[in-house]
């Protein structure tokens, strides 16, 4: 049983890793080698692609821009979603189900047409080309997701825990922070990761709401395509570097994600 499990995992990870490897492989090659034929490792490894990404200001500032709006978004999403998810998981109130479903519908609108109104809206309030604009815009799809995931996790915590805590004399905020949040750690970890992830890779909104000062990395990447060819190597290097913050995030939340919870004493 254990062996079979490990085998499944191994095969799947291999499937996941081969394309990633080819990306890393590409990032250490010159364009000439990339297009010259199939090589399983760089025959003439070069760091030129990374040099471009790390030394050109437009590249590294775009990383910082992305990081700044993504972390803002993560923070905002979690802060507003936690109480809301608690409300949905524990109470009934006027229009609760419809409200919940309406939140979900915000992920359903195909974004292309909404870009111009978005641009207009954020320009009108003077936020165009700032990280906060992108952070707020990404809340549109991240907050519903956060509410949704957290609600799921909160619902799987037995209500009896709340009741016991109240009987033991906890106030709501104290209970929520001291007892409840630690119990849904896997949920918070996974939510934080998803908020990060969806915001990090989102292209259309981020590109539309910025021009120069807050340009995100995903938009910066598109400039590797030009009238005189695609700069595969730099694109690959930028892609590899784009993986790193996500790896850091998953590394930090890994304990939360992996933390099972025991229904211990309150």
């Amino acid at each position: 049983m254990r062996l079979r499990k490990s085998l499944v995992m191994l095969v799947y990870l291999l499937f996941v890793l081969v394309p990633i490897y080819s990306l890393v492989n590409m990032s250490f090659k010159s364009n000439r080698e990339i297009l010259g034929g199939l090589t399983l490792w760089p025959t003439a490894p070069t760091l030129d692609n990374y040099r471009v990404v790390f030394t050109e200001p437009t590249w590294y500032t775009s990383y910082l821009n992305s990081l700044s709006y993504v972390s803002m978004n993560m923070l905002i999403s979690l802060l507003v979603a936690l109480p809301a998810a608690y409300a949905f998981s524990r109470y009934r109130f006027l229009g609760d189900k419809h409200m919940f479903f309406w939140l979900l519908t915000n992920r359903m609108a195909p974004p292309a047409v909404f870009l111009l109104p978005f641009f207009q809206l954020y320009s009108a309030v003077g936020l165009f080309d700032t990280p906060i604009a992108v952070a707020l815009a990404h809340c549109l799809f991240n907050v519903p997701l956060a509410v949704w995931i957290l609600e799921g996790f909160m619902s799987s915590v037995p209500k009896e825990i709340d009741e016991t805590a109240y009987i033991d004399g906890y106030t709501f905020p104290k209970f929520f922070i001291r007892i409840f949040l630690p119990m849904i750690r896997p949920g918070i970890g996974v939510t934080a990761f998803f908020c990060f992830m969806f915001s990090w890779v989102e292209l259309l909104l981020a590109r539309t709401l910025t021009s120069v000062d807050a340009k995100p990395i995903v938009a910066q990447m598109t400039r590797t395509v030009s009238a005189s060819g695609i700069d595969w190597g730099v694109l690959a290097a930028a892609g590899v570097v784009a993986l790193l913050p996500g790896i850091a995030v998953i590394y930090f939340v890994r304990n939360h994600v992996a933390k099972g919870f025991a229904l211990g004493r309150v």
Partner: protein
Amino acid sequence: MGWMAWTLPTALFFAGIALLLVAMTVWQTVSPGRERKGFLPLTTSRGDRLFIGLLASAYGHLLVLALTDWPLWVATAICATGMAIIMKWG
């Protein structure tokens, strides 16, 4: 707000939806309804029936636009009737 490209019909449409929501809230507050089972294959509250009615109306309009040459108000009339039926007996 010029950029929102308002037209009279859409303004009326949204005003209608807003009014409907306000009315439903007031109604629910004044005389709370309860969930019940009508001809629809699931237990519904008033709000659910409103949602189902609106969704059905949207599809109704699209259907009329897709399959017929009827003017739109015919579709609207049919959908309004359907809406009333769903609200009352759904």
